[in-house]
């Protein structure tokens, strides 16, 4: 066996090394030395991210089972940055009495899911893709239930595991249909077979059913309407840091994997999935927005907001071009910073006072001006207001979709931004305009949350204005 194949998997191997080190540290370290566990985990992940910044070259290993390219490398870096921010945000939370005994599990399981996402986006074969997908979702069940004395957390985990199993079975069924139609599970071979006119696979109903089932299965992971029903309950019940992770990282990874597969494998039948996706995007954005309007609980609110954001992310998928890909990665990057800033603030407030309702934020500006301003900037970025990063990412993703001629879709999505602005402004209104005699008192947040929120806010302010980030992604976004 040629071991040099493994060298292509440098990202996975380095992450595995981090996981193993943490595992050994957690198992054999003394109680005293394990106090620094959280910090060490963050530093190790940061070091691994830095290692991945070494430019990668395109290549494949194990006979096309595993792929890598500069674009995939960039996606992994983006996911890493997000995960790192989530871990930093979780530091104060893992110190609480209930969770501190499971601190090791939290970090190791989170990194395991990250490992699964790596495999998912790097795979060149549906089998490896499925393994990656399962590695990414099963540990999350345990994470959702990590506060095991809270009933909500428990319930959320049960819902999550059932939905994950159901969607996996749909996905597997879709894959078996595709296998039945084409006779192979390698992306490259499928694309060749479908593209081959003489074989006339492109018209086979079996393939279409397969694609639709596959889309449905992925729809659960990305929480596209009508497969979104689990989202709000799970987001509300899970610990805030896990919710943040679910809403940003696992969603971004799944969206990117979907794009790669649709574009790489099913490009010859684009007309089929583009129609399906078109409809899905419209209802996802609209339903997500309309439900978000009525939410009282901020975590549920963010759940529906993230459903509609998933719709916007899919605009990059439907474009299926180099621009679309760049915009998608860029959108996910910006979304990570904006959303994690919001979740960072939610978790600061929740840890200190236990309040998560929008009404609890009334008059927050008078008592906690910095938190409110950070929250406002993040919300404006989510709503796509310039000069914050969200404006640029939204513009670019619309640009990508319009380039392929989806003007009507862009128009519908744009009208939806007005609705989304409405509900984001509701939170801003609560903080800045409404007055409350028993507003949340001035909070003193700890260093980790402060670092986390500061990084996120700087990201929100700067990413859009520095065009070099977009250009850097753009330079690699071809040939997936």
């Amino acid at each position, binding site marked *: 066996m040629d071991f040099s194949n493994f060298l292509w998997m440098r990202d996975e191997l380095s992450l595995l090394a981090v996981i193993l080190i943490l595992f050994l540290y957690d198992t054999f370290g003394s109680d005293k030395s394990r106090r620094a566990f959280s910090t060490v985990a963050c530093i190790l992940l940061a070091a691994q991210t830095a290692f991945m910044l070494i430019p990668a070259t395109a290549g494949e290993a194990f006979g096309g089972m595993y792929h890598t390219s500069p674009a995939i490398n960039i996606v992994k870096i983006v996911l890493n940055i997000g995960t790192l921010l989530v871990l930093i945000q979780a530091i104060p939370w893992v110190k609480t009495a209930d969770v501190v005994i499971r601190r090791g599990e939290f970090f190791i399981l989170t990194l395991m899911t990250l490992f699964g996402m790596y495999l998912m986006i790097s795979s060149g074969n549906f089998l490896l893709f499925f393994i990656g997908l399962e590695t990414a979702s099963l540990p999350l069940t345990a994470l959702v239930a990590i506060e095991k004395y809270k009933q909500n957390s428990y319930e959320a985990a049960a819902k999550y595991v059932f939905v994950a199993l159901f969607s996996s079975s749909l996905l597997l069924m879709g894959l078996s249909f595709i296998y039945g139609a084409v006779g192979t599970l390698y992306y490259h071979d499928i694309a060749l077979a479908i593209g081959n006119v003489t074989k006339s696979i492109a018209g086979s109903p079996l393939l279409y059913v397969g694609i639709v089932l596959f889309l449905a299965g992925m729809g659960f992971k990305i929480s596209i309407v009508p497969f979104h029903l689990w989202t709000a309950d799970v987001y509300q019940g899970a610990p805030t840091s896990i919710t943040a992770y679910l809403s940003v990282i696992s969603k971004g990874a799944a969206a990117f994997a979907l794009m790669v597969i649709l574009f790489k494998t099913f490009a010859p039948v684009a007309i089929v999935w583009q129609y399906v996706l078109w409809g899905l995007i419209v209802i996802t954005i609209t339903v997500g927005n309309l439900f978000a309007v009525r939410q009282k609980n901020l975590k549920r609110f963010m759940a529906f907001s993230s459903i509609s954001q998933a719709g916007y992310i899919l605009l990059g998928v439907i474009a299926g071009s180099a*621009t679309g890909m*760049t915009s998608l990665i860029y959108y996910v990057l910006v979304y990570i910073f904006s959303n994690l800033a919001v979740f960072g603030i939610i978790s600061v407030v929740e840890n200190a006072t236990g309040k998560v309702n929008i009404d609890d934020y009334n008059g927050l500006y008078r008592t906690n001006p910095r938190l409110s301003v950070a929250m406002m900037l993040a919300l*404006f970025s989510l709503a796509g*207001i*310039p*000069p914050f990063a969200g*404006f640029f990412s939204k*513009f*670019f993703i*619309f*640009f990508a979709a*319009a*380039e392929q001629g989806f*003007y009507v879709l*862009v*128009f519908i999505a*744009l*009208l939806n*931004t*007005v609705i989304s*602005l*409405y509900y984001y*402004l509701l939170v*801003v*209104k609560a903080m*800045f*305009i409404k007055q409350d005699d028993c507003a949340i008192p001035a909070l003193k947040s700890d260093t980790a949350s402060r670092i986390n929120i500061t990084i996120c806010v700087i990201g929100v302010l700067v990413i859009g204005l520095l*065009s070099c980030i*977009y*250009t850097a992604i*753009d330079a690699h976004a071809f040939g997936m």
Partner: protein
Amino acid sequence: MNFLALFVLIPLLMMAGLFLSKEMKMIRTVAVIGSTLQLILAVAVLILFLQERAAGNTAEMLFTIDNPIVWYAPLDIALAVGVDGVSVAMLLLTAIVVFAGVFASWKINPLPKEFFLWLTLLSIGVYGFFISINLFTMFMFYEIALIPMYLLIGVWGSGNKNYSAMKLTLMLMGGSALLLVSILGLYFYSAPEGGELTMNILEIARNNAIPHEVQTYLFPLAFVGFGVLGAMFPFHTWSPDGHASAPTAVSMLHAGVLMKLGGYGCFRVAMYLMPWATSELSWIFLILTGISVVYGAFSACVQTDLKYINAYSSVSHCGLVLFALLMWKTTAMTGAILQMLSHGLMTALFFALIGMIYGRTHTRDIREMGGLMKIMPFLSVCYVIAGMASLGLPGLSGFIAEMTVFVGSFEWTDPFRRVLTIVACTSIVITAVYILRVVGKLLYGTVQNEHHRELTDASWWERLSAITLIVSVAALGMAPGWIANLISNSMSVISERIMQYI
């Protein structure tokens, strides 16, 4: 870097200064210095522009950069700037209104620092919009100007402020949604097949490659998108509520300058870039704007709240701007820009005065006030002057503007435009009705509330604010020639572009 960038840099520095200042005195100092610098800069740009023109430089846009700094290379987004006669006039208008607005909000309470920060952000959006000639940056600055309005009205406003703030923000964002689609469309059709796509307005105009059937879709989107901000019927409903609830300086800036963004965008983006669609479709919008003009004036007649009267009068006057633009003869378009300037100054003056009166009497209902001429002579005289300007007294700016508009519109001989022009002309009479009604009731009537007798007249900062605006209104009215020349040179370019499609 080009010196036009100072229009964005100075307010940015001003924001930094405001951010660091601690007490009221410091905040005022920074605000005054910043707005004075902007005013000086605007005057300097005007002088330089006139010198260039006198030296025989006939380029369409002056002070452009040959190699603009490319911002997002893959999407052809560059920081391209440039000004023509209209933009120069608009920059000056903005600077004057901002200057007056700072003094009008001298005693703003609560949170003065935040107020001035948002106000400055608003002005950055406006300045940036007027100097940009790249569609993307133009759109970005346009949106920057919209969002501070929400908090400015929501926090410092009065009356039904939550409702108004939300309505205004959402309607304008809806407009910008339409706009973004048309901007994307303009970009992807900006060059002939195989040519290099561009976001630069001048290059799109030079290529003139947008297919006619595409123009029929994009023109209404762009025109309505900007028309929402220009308070075009039936998208004007945000304007009365918004202006009535906003604090003084914000009403001034919004009615005075921000609504002009709508008109400016209409001709710079919609009409200039899509001349064929303009000649084909302008009749629809002529009818709509014609309705704005008359409907706004009639609505103003039945209002009892001073701010509502003025807000509806703004709908009428801004409708006239769009109306005149759609006549696309050079004279009419020149009149449209004059009307923008005149309305900008005059309405800012109105809102400043209303704010000052409201600050004393704590009511804006004209039924509860009267005889203010004896109590606060300075403010009342200013109010009369503003009213006279509004109903078109010769010697003040309103007369010049409306005269040019109607003369220009009458150059058309076809019955459709003739009738519309005559209908629009009636607004002059209706304006006189509501202005004189207010002046008679508010200033000369009997004193309605005995407590009002103890009120004081304007303080020095209020006087400064009002006088700045009155001087500008009078200057425009007395010596309109040079500024009309400045404008008509720029407008004839657009007019000729459209004329070739008749």
